[in-house]
């Protein structure tokens, strides 16, 4: 079996979700080829084919298009099928030409499955799988289903017609996809993200949280959908109640200024540290130092960091955004708070801090057990093999 994965860039070392998926498939003798716009030279896991470049200068663009068309001559039958399919979907001649160029690197391949890593990645390539005689798979990851369609109404109409099987990381995202028009008849499989539990292991966590030095932690991109500002607002009230703490936010992003301003305006300069992006080793150390992990996202596919935090025995307080309430079992492995209720978040933080040590320990143990049961790489790899073979 040969599977083609379409991604915007080759996965980095820490992106276990994708690297372990590829490894798991290869171990079962499945040949994996990656189609990507950006290629990291360090990536050696499988064959990578770069998508055709878009040139600013028209002359170069025309020459590049001609070159790709010539390369597709041996695949004339596929090309013909592709053009007929696009025509059936009322695509204009100029758009067919454009799409043929952009998909030429896939159209020349023989695959059993063509799988798009995000739903947005499939836009403009909906007919390709059928044209090359492959099954079409697509993954729902969060932003692509929960946010992107608001600005692009009806963007997945063609995708829903062509896709053979969808992979969702949470039930909530699948529900949202149905609302967006995905047929309930379409095959689907839920495969949650997973982590390498040998890396994120609890190391004798102390559950006596000193009131003078409570350590909060969030590992996230600095983006509005991550709900960092509501977390800061809750912690500012927490501070007003006389608690002393350190809150470290790990990650980078375009909302840095908005967040730095909120920290200052909320009087949290001496409490909150924006520590930037960190290597995995350092992240593990930060998990070890922290008592409570916060993830009060406004929108969230599933959240790997919350699985890691649970695996490391942290007390997790999260929002109920999309997959988060499936990630954390409320009152069992952590606490799930409705979004847009800063007061409830503040109250829950205080409640958690003041739980008996034995109660905290129990939640921490539950969390570790649940991660080992449901969110390991081995399980995920097996589920992905099933996805293509069943």
């Amino acid at each position: 079996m040969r599977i083609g994965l379409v991604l915007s860039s080759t996965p980095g070392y820490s992106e276990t979700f994708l690297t372990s998926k590829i490894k798991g498939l290869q171990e079962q003798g499945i040949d994996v080829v990656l189609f990507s716009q950006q290629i990291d030279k360090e990536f050696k896991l499988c064959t990578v084919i770069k998508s055709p470049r878009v040139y600013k200068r028209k002359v170069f663009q025309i020459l590049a298009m001609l070159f790709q068309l010539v390369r597709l001559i041996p695949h004339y039958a596929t090309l013909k099928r592709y053009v007929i399919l696009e025509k059936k979907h009322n695509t204009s001649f100029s758009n067919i030409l454009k799409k043929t160029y952009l998909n030429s690197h896939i159209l020349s391949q023989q695959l059993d499955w063509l799988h798009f890593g995000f739903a947005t990645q499939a836009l403009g390539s909906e007919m390709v799988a059928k044209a090359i005689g492959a099954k079409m798979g697509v993954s729902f990851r969060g932003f692509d289903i929960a946010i992107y369609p608001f600005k692009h109404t009806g963007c997945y109409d063609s995708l829903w017609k062509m896709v053979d099987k969808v992979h969702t990381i949470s039930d909530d995202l699948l529900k949202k996809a149905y609302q967006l028009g995905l047929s309930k008849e379409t095959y689907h499989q839920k495969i949650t993200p997973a982590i390498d539990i040998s890396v994120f292991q609890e190391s004798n966590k102390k559950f006596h949280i000193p009131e003078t030095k409570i350590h909060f932690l969030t590992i996230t991109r600095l983006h509005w959908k991550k709900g960092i500002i509501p977390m800061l607002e809750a912690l500012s009230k927490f501070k007003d109640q006389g608690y002393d703490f350190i809150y470290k936010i790990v990650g980078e992003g375009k909302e840095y200024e908005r967040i730095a301003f909120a920290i200052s305006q909320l009087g949290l300069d001496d409490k909150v540290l924006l520590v930037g992006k960190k290597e995995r080793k350092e992240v593990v150390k930060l998990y070890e130092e922290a008592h409570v992990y916060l993830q009060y996202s406004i929108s969230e596919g599933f959240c790997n960091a919350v699985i890691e935090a649970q695996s490391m025995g942290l007390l997790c307080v999260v929002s109920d955004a999309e997959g988060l309430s499936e990630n954390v079992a409320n009152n069992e492995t952590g606490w799930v708070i409705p979004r847009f209720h800063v007061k409830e978040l503040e109250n829950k933080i205080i409640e958690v801090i003041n739980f008996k040590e034995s109660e905290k320990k129990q939640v921490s143990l539950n969390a570790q057990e649940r991660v080992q049961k449901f969110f390991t790489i081995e399980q995920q790899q097996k589920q992905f093999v099933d996805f293509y073979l069943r």
Partner: protein
Amino acid sequence: MTKNIKIAIYSGVVPSTTFIERLNTGLSGIGFQILLFGNRRIKKSSNKNIHYYTHTNKLSKLFQLIKYSVLLSLFKLKDKKKLDLIIDAFGKNKRLLKVKYYPVLYHSPDIFHIQWTKSIEDWMWVKEFGIKLVVSLRGAHINYSPIANKSLAKMYQRLFPEIDGFHAVRKAIVTEASKYSDIFNKTQVIYSGLNMDKLSFQTKKAFDNTPLRILSIGRNHWKKGYSYALEALSLFNNKGIDFHYTIVGAANDEELLFLRSEMSLEENITFLGELSFEGVLNLMNDVDVLLLPSVEEGIANVVLEAMALGTIIVSTDCGGMNEVLLDAKNGFIVPIRNPFAMAEALQKVAQLTLDDYQNIINEARKTVEQNHDIKMTIAQMEDFYQTILNH
């Protein structure tokens, strides 16, 4: 006396902000010679006291470089050499700096008044040539940029003592800026002024608040706090009060579209793109309340305009808004980042009687007439510049 005084009001582009454009017209009207530099995107005005030394495209930039290189070599060679040494010290973008600096050196205004505090380092050189350097203190450049960028804060600490004068659009920002250097003595607070003749007050003849029509105006930027407004309106909706909320200038924003959908308020909230000034005024006249949900502002012009026109204000207590609004007297003012308080204030507006509504908008108009008339702004600016020159 003002006749021969040359003032360069610089923001890098022409036209600049509404406030600056009003200032240019007003100051030129009382005899100041206004010098404009930078990139021009409109036709030159026929005002004989406004002088344009601007460029419009790559070719005109090149022409400007050649023209002023020649003029400076012929008439101010010593100064040119001195400036060239300064430009050399910058190390990069030398040609671009020459395009920017040469016209300023050649026309040597008495005062070079820059609008963006972040760029003071680029303009300190004018002091070497006897030009007074004046800086306007503006929201972002003082309130959050130096917080997010520590090197900027250090630059302010180093250079603020050398600036000849600061103009502040509100009182609170002076305190903020003084964190970097004690500038109280050389700062003058001059409020933004409106042309009151063009904003005729319309008292409400009836206050039919079903639905309550709410409006916000302003480009989509996090500091405008629209996400809080949406949260507030979700709470407001839960109170069972019928409303329609329009935001002008925030069309097609991912965050707002997402929040509106999550709160199931598609029917009640409209996002519009930018509108003409007249379009905005018409909308302001039509609605019941203008909402300013910002987390940071100077003194918002839209609020002053709505107050002048006779539309009630609900505003957060951000920036200098408490220098304009007195809660329940000439509008409503609520704490920042507080959707509950915002929803409550909107409810208070919805429950006003026609008499109460009229009392508040009459007070609001009075406030604007007393403190925000463009004539007053111009007189204060004239006084400010004279003080700088006599120092």
